[in-house]
């Protein structure tokens, strides 16, 4: 057995992940993908560790601001979206020059306007399902895809506005 060169060739992707990451790191990975509140037991199952270990890691991740906890029986956890958005804003403001951010923002704002015209609605959630064609499956799917893209555009507009503000406030930190 020559295990020191890494996992054997037949190990599956999950086994490779378990080999490569510590228990804490696996709980971190698991919680980053948790958009819904889940109990520590579910996190433990997904992270392939004991519930005690999962709870300890989760407590630490809550303190770090990565995860949020909701009291209950049992308590539940999910990722902290405001922390992740903040991180994305920081990354954009420090790694991209403000002119690039501004021109991206302008083109996204234009795309948002085009969607508003196309759907005759101020925002994607204001588009009523009843206005969808019922008999043409491809058309329905295409519209659903477009609405998802519109939601992504609006999210990006909010994030980029914050990134531009952030880059403007501290120009020395936020150089390209």
């Amino acid at each position: 057995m020559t295990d020191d060169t890494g996992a054997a060739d037949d190990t599956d992707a999950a086994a490779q992940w378990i080999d490569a990451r510590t228990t804490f790191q696996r709980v971190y990975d698991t919680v980053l993908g948790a958009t819904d509140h889940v109990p520590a037991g579910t996190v433990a199952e997904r992270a392939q560790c004991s519930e005690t270990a999962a709870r300890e890691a989760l407590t630490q991740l809550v303190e770090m601001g990565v995860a949020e906890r909701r009291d209950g029986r049992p308590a539940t956890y999910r990722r902290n979206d405001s922390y992740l958005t903040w991180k994305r804003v920081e990354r954009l403001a420090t790694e991209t020059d403000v002119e690039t951010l501004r021109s991206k923002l302008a083109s996204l704002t234009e795309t948002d306007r085009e969607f508003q015209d196309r759907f005759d609605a101020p925002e994607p959630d204001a588009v009523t399902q009843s206005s969808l064609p019922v008999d043409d499956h491809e058309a329905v799917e295409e519209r659903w895809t477009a609405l998802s893209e519109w939601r992504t555009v609006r999210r990006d507009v909010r994030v980029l506005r914050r990134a531009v503000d952030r880059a403007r406030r501290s120009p020395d930190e936020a150089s390209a």
Partner: protein
Amino acid sequence: MTDRDEPETATGPLDEPTLRLLGTRAVENRLVVCQTFEPDAITPRRLRLGLDAEQYPAAVAEATLDVRWFESGDYSFHYRECRDAADDCQCRWDRHPKPSSPRAHFHPPPTAGAAESSPVAATHPLAVLFAVLDWIADRVGTLHER
């Protein structure tokens, strides 16, 4: 996991943190050699994973896996093998509202044809990624046996 299968749930915006998670964890897998955000990292729309062509038979020039993940738990994993001397082979694991199919479905190779029931039951992004990578690893094995 709560039930994400309510028929009226629309597909949310792209889930940027999850795409980052999938990219960084995927490159640790022995099949994956690189990750890039397309069209760019400022406003990503998909994660492209480059697969190790060396592990494929010589006929396959390039293999990629394009990943999209949405806040509603919807996703698309699009696998492609490019060949110099023959048609490309592709398939897709999707989860999104579809009028004529279950929310999670599979477009089988070689052309990512009409949707059939999905072999992937997992809902967590890493579990779905791992299931897809395992399928690709099996596929590479099968290609060598041919």
